[in-house]
């Protein structure tokens, strides 16, 4: 049973977006994604300052099983990346919505997150 927090928005490619309300948003991957991947061994993230288009590959998440691309759910500029993931990538497995966050973006279009799936729609998508 995957956890799908109600206050987040979701991409079909299993990234979540948490809008802070001040024009910034935090991005990570869902509980469903971390469970499918298995033990995460490496997370490759972009540099701070990088500009991402919606749907653009922003990095890679590697597990013992395979490597998977990470897709930007919304467009924006990278203002922070999670420093913990370099030495402890398994944090994405244990806390995909909290300690395992991946990026913070300054969002180009504040309403863009609303175009993504809400929790109910994402739950249906992964059922």
């Amino acid at each position, binding site marked *: 049973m995957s956890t799908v927090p109600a206050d987040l928005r979701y991409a079909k490619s299993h990234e979540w977006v948490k809008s802070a309300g001040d024009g910034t948003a935090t991005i990570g991957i869902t509980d469903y994604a971390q469970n499918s991947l*298995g*033990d995460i*061994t*490496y997370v490759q993230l972009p540099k701070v300052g990088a500009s991402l288009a919606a749907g653009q590959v922003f990095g*890679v998440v*590697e597990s*013992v099983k395979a*490597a998977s691309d990470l897709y930007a759910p919304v467009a924006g500029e990278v203002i922070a990346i999670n420093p913990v993931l370099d030495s402890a990538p398994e944090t994405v*497995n244990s806390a995909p919505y909290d300690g395992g966050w991946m990026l913070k973006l300054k969002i180009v279009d504040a309403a863009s997150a609303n175009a993504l799936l809400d929790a109910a729609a994402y739950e249906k998508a992964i059922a």
Partner: protein
Amino acid sequence: MSELKRTPLRDFHAAHGARLVDFAGWEMPVQYRSILEEHKAVRRTAGLFDVSHMGEVEVKGPGALGFLNHLVTNDVAKLFPGRVLYSPMCYPNGGVVDDLLVYMRAPEDYFLCINAGNIDKDVAWINEQAKGFEVTITHRSDDYALLAVQGPAACAIVQSLTGAKLDRIGYYHFAEGTLAGVQCMISRTGYTGEDGFELYHPAGDAQVLAEALLAAGVPFGLELTGLGARDSLRLEAGYPLYGHEITADISPLTAGLGWTVKLDKGVDFVGRDALVAEKNNGAPNKVIFFKTGDRRIVRAETPVLGADGVAVGKVLSGTLSPVLNEAIGSALVTTASSTGALSVDIRGTLINLQLVKPPFVQLKKSST
């Protein structure tokens, strides 16, 4: 689409939260909790593996020794009752049919353990090669289940369930005994590089034995361990996996298993001529083991680049070593390139391969 085969413990695995996958046509647990955590548990305390999918074949009769010494590359004449031998068996061209364990139970009574993915091929090959020898070959895979307990606490855990004196069973030796009332061939062997036992027992008793081992082992920190951890453990130990480091196209000499090829054992064996030629002429390729100093896993089939950036081989196995905290693996490269700089391209970044003479970790198998 044919259904996957199941070991007697398939429902036991499901009940304990295993993630079940298709392995060589068998429904097997790849992990229960986490591949990395299960791996670390084996090195720290102990792990319990269901490897019942492996195959068992009996070879009996006056011609058994002669036949087996013709079939495999290692010297079966070295065995005495209670002793185990690891050996490849080869095709006439020196490529490997499978690697296996040969158990001597008594004169004229041998027991073979073969890889799950090769059972049908091996049984056909063994029967074909046996023509002309006075032996009876009996395929017993369906009768046996196999549980492995591996790790520093394995001996204490298994001892708590049996009256057999385990300190009398040395590495690569075995004895008959009962564990929790289940008749077992207690074999001090394993595929992890740790001390431990592989327990061959009647398939119908697998559930009872697994429950007993789990109950006895949990106070020691025993964990159920899947095939994912089994693979990373054997790679850390530098052990070959059939289909990767040894194949129909990779001979034991190319794979660095020269110690299992007894060209001078005094009898001809299948593949001997080809292996003598390879030894005399030098093999064009060799299997190397490497680490990278980086956490990005170098996966099987990744091309290996030589000093001038040209491909000189490919990766055979790759994983993350939870003990070393870096990527480790094996590769088949040209012998000529193996002494120079080698690298792989991971998503546009060139990563150097640091050659390592295996094992990657200190092997703590039994010293008795």
